[in-house]
């Protein structure tokens, strides 16, 4: 019965660990939501931020965060997909691949400040983008790429080789096999990775302070022409995101209600991520079912 006892013991230990983790998580989320949710209201979500009087909102910051997220994903996902496919399907097991992997991992462990400053010097100054959403999105891409790439590679790898053989033996090109057979099967895993990355993008501040900027000039939400200065879609305008706003409010703001704004913004941020997570999960499941026709 020794084995059974140690099984019980280990299971108990795992339950203990999970219990602690869950209580930390719940306490943390509870703390943020408890402090923040009472201050969230329609006005808060739909009005502009105020620099020194009370009653400011986060409309622009919220939109900027979402817009930046979408833009960053549009830029980074295809690159990461290509790189992930390369690593899982084409890369040979040699030193070149080793170097590639190492450099990707190094990229992922760069501190955000460094990436932000690099983005600042390269994009904002050198390439003359100015403080802009585009510069911010590209800076975020630097973070995203290693995470996404790795995740995509691993999801692809977890698809059994039998599937590759099936495709290959039917005379399908490697590319078709990968994109039409392997990729759909790897989709749920890829989606999880995407969600994780989106979360990071949403919460990232340090890299954006120097690239997307920390002010949110008011924009015209009716102006759909993205080449005009005031359009909300103009990728060349500076844009303070929600996370940067939280940072700014906490560090330098003189508004009397700064702590309420900061807690409410944090809560909004988390709620948005939650909605995003659940939505993506639902969508992913549907997509998977559709692509694989399983019931």
């Amino acid at each position, binding site marked *: 019965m020794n084995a059974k006892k140690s099984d019980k013991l280990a299971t108990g230990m795992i339950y203990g660990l999970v219990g602690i983790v869950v209580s930390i998580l719940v306490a943390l989320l509870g703390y943020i939501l408890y402090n923040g949710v009472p201050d969230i209201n329609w006005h808060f979500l739909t009005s502009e931020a105020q*620099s*020194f009087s009370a009653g400011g909102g986060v409309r622009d910051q919220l939109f900027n965060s979402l817009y930046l997220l979408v833009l960053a994903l549009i830029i980074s996902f295809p690159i990461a997909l290509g790189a992930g496919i390369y690593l899982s399907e084409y890369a040979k097991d040699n030193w070149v691949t080793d170097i590639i992997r190492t450099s990707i991992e190094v990229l992922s462990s760069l501190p955000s400040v460094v990436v932000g400053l690099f983005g600042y010097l390269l994009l904002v*100054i050198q390439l003359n983008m100015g403080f802009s959403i585009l510069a911010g999105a590209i800076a975020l891409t630097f973070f995203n790429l290693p995470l996404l790439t790795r995740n995509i590679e691993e999801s692809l790898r977890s698809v059994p080789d039998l599937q590759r053989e099936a495709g290959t033996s039917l005379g399908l090109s490697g590319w078709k096999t990968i994109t039409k057979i392997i990729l759909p099967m790897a989709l749920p895993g890829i989606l999880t990775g995407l969600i994780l990355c989106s979360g990071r993008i949403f919460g990232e501040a340090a890299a954006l*302070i*120097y690239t997307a*900027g920390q*002010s949110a000039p008011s924009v015209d939400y009716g102006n759909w022409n993205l080449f005009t200065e005031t359009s909300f879609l103009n990728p060349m305008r500076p844009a303070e995101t929600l996370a940067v706003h939280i940072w*700014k409010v906490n560090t*330098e*703001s003189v508004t009397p209600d700064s702590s309420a704004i900061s807690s409410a913004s944090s809560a909004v941020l988390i709620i948005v991520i939650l909605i995003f997570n659940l939505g993506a999960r639902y969508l992913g499941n549907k997509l998977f079912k559709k692509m694989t026709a399983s019931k």
Partner: protein
Amino acid sequence: SNSSSATKSSSSEVSGKITAVGSTALQPLVEKAAGDFQKDNSKINITVQGGGSGTGLSQVQDGSVKVGNSDIFAEQKDGIDAKKLVDHKVAVVGMAPVVNKDAGVKNVTMDQLKQIFTGKITNWKDLGGKDEKITVVNRAEGSGTRATFESAVLGGEKAIKSQEQDSNGTVQKIVSTTPGAISYLAFSYINDKVEALSIDDVKATDDNVADNKWKIWSYEHMYTKGDPKDATKKFIEYMKSDDVQKKLVKDMGYISTNDMKVQKDSKGTVSDK
């Protein structure tokens, strides 16, 4: 557009794009002013960003931005050629030592303050307060606030190695929650969660700053590379106008340059205006 447009200063035909980068402390003021300014000057587009005084000065020196915001004199910064830059002082900021409320001290002498920050006095009871260790929280090395404080208080001596924070908000929070903590804050960040000390029985008020009874203050600068032109010139004029100085500057907790009875140069020498 060239110099001819600069002469018609009130016409709204002036157009252009201004980027102002630098001091995070000054950012809200400039940002707000820029917003108001653009209501009447729709062709001028102004972007205001933080990044720190050092960043502001180096960018304006490189010509990457039109305006560099700084809370430190360009002369005081290594690596900046102050001669190439033109200083526009847009506000005055007063700073006061703040302590955690339960230290039990409300007034210190300038010398005591110096001894605290150089590590010679380490307990509040030496100053008539509670028996509690003094926790010094300094500001980030190289920041304008620290430079101002040290030149006014330390007189050339070195501060002890201690905690450092780079923003008013964080310092305020740390001082208000850490027993025995002392640091210094711009007037606008002082609230009832922390105790602002008087120095030599002089209270930290705007009026005392205006006639230099209160010694710890500095300017907020907007630097341009050479004399400002066109849109930039118009905007800086606006910053110095009564619209901004009488209202916005006060609202943000700064002191208007117009109210000052004295002036300070980059070496810290104070003279009557």
